[in-house]
C-alpha cells in the first residue's frame, strides 16, 4: 500500500490551494474571454450542412476537427441536449463531471472547453452565452417527458445505434439553453438567463455528435421549438479557448499527445 510522507502531503495541500484560488478568482479568464472577437453571422458560403430540427426531434452526425457545430435557438426553446463521442475511438466521450470539476465551475459557457474522459478537449465553446448550460441534471428521459413523447435519452440511444454504438455508450449528457443552477439550499432550480441565441462549438478532434431538441426536464415550459444545426468552417479558427485557463492549456497538451 502506498503511503505518503508529511512533506508530500503538505506540498499537495499547498498546491491544491493555489490551483483552486487561480481557478476560482475572477479576472484572468474573464479578461481573455471578453477580449476575444465574436464570431458573428455564419458566412453563407462557409456552411457544408444546415438543417432545422423540429421540436422534440434530434440530429446526429460527424463534425471534423476544425469545424464549428453551431446550434441556433431563435425561438428560445427551453433546452437542447448534447452528447459527443470521439469519431476515432468512441470509447472516449464527453465527460460532464470532468468538464465542470476541472474548470472549477458548473457555469460553463463561452471561453470554456468540453472535456472527454481522457483529459482532452473535445470542443471549445467559441461563442454563445457565458453560462446557461447544464451538466448536472442532464436531459429529458422517458420518465420526465412522459409516455408517448420523444425524449433526449431515447434519441441518443438511436443516434448511438446509427454509429455502431449502443445504450451502454449513452451516459451523462449536457444541455444547452438550460440555465440550471444550484440554490443556496442545494435545490436544482431553473435560472432566469435568456434562452434564445446561438452556441458555437469548435471541434478540437474528429467527433460524432448528437443533439436532442427536447425541453429540459427542469424547464418551466415543456413546449419545444425548432433549432437550427449548422456545420461550417471559419476562415480562421478561433483559438482563444486553448489558452483561456491553465487547465485548458494542459488539456490541449493531451490533445496533441493523442493525435
Amino acid at each position, binding site marked *: 500500500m502506498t503511503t505518503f510522507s508529511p512533506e508530500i502531503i503538505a506540498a*499537495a495541500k499547498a*498546491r491544491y490551494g493555489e490551483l483552486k484560488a487561480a481557478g476560482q478568482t475572477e479576472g484572468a479568464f474573464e479578461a481573455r474571454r471578453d477580449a476575444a472577437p465574436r464570431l458573428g453571422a455564419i458566412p453563407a458560403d462557409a456552411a457544408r450542412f444546415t438543417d432545422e430540427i423540429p421540436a422534440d426531434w434530434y440530429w446526429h452526425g460527424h463534425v471534423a476537427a476544425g469545424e464549428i457545430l453551431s446550434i441556433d435557438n431563435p425561438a428560445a426553446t427551453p433546452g437542447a441536449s448534447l452528447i459527443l463521442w470521439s469519431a476515432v475511438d468512441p470509447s472516449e466521450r464527453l465527460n460532464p*463531471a470532468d468538464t465542470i470539476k476541472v474548470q*472549477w465551475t458548473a457555469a460553463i459557457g463561452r471561453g470554456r472547453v468540453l472535456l472527454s474522459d481522457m483529459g482532452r478537449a473535445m470542443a471549445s465553446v467559441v461563442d454563445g452565452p457565458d453560462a446557461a448550460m447544464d451538466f448536472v*441534471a442532464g436531459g429529458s428521459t422517458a420518465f420526465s417527458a412522459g409516455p408517448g413523447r420523444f425524449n433526449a435519452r431515447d434519441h441518443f440511444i438511436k443516434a448511438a445505434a446509427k454509429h455502431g454504438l449502443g445504450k451502454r455508450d449513452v451516459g451523462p449528457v449536457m444541455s444547452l439553453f438550460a440555465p440550471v443552477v444550484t440554490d443556496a439550499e*442545494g*435545490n436544482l432550480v431553473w435560472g432566469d438567463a435568456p434562452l434564445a441565441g446561438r452556441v458555437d462549438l469548435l471541434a478540437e478532434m474528429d467527433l460524432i455528435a448528437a443533439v436532442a431538441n427536447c425541453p429540459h426536464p427542469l424547464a418551466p415550459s415543456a413546449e419545444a421549438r425548432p433549432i437550427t444545426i449548422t456545420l461550417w468552417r471559419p476562415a480562421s479558427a478561433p483559438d482563444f479557448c486553448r489558452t483561456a485557463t491553465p487547465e485548458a492549456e494542459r488539456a490541449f497538451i493531451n490533445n496533441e499527445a493523442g493525435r
Partner: protein
Amino acid sequence: MTRSSLDPAAAVARHEIAATLGWSGLVKKGQSIRIVDSCGQQAVDTLFYNAHDTSERYSAQDTLQAARYAYIRAGTTLISNDGNPMLTMTADTVGYHDTSAGACSVESNTVRFGHETRHLHACRENFVVEAARWGMQKRDIVSNINFFMNVPIEPDGRLAIVDGLSEPGNYVELVALMDVICLISNCPQINNPCNGFDPTPIEVLIWDPA
C-alpha cells in the same frame, strides 16, 4: 443524521477495503449495504449496475432530476438510466454526498494538477479493473457517487472539492431495490482534499433483509 439500527455482528458479509484499492460485489434485492469511512474524510467512489442486465446502471442525472436536489442524502432513491429505483439511502451520519464531480482519473489529473501527476493511481483505474470482472468496459463507467466527498456547488456555479465532513466511523447505508453489482474505488487521490490528502481504509458490510 439518520442512524441505522442494524447490528454489525449480524452482517452476512464484511469487507475491509485497504486504502487506494478497488472492490466489487453483489448486493441482492432487500439486502442493505453499509459503507463505513473508518478513519474519516475518505471519498468512496461508487457505481451500481443491474446484476441481470448491466446496460441498466446508476444514473446521477436521473437521480438528481428526480430529487431536484444537487446531492445524495438520506432518503434519496438512486435511479437507473431506465428510470427504475435501484437503491434507497436509509442511513447517513454525514449529511450529503457528491454525485456531480465524477471519479478521478490519470488523464483528468494531468489537466487538473499538472502532467507531473501522470503516474499516480486513480479511481477510474480501479473502476476499469472491477468492471472487467463483470464483463464491462470503460464505456460502462458513468458518473458515480462520491460518498463522503464534499463538493458544494455555489449559486454562481463555482464548485470545488473541499474538506470532507465525515469523521472516523461515519457511514452511509442503502437498501437494494433490485439485485445490483456494486463497484467501489477507495479513492487514492492525494492532490485534493477528498481524502484529507492521506487515503485510508474503509469497510463494507452487508445484511440480509430482517
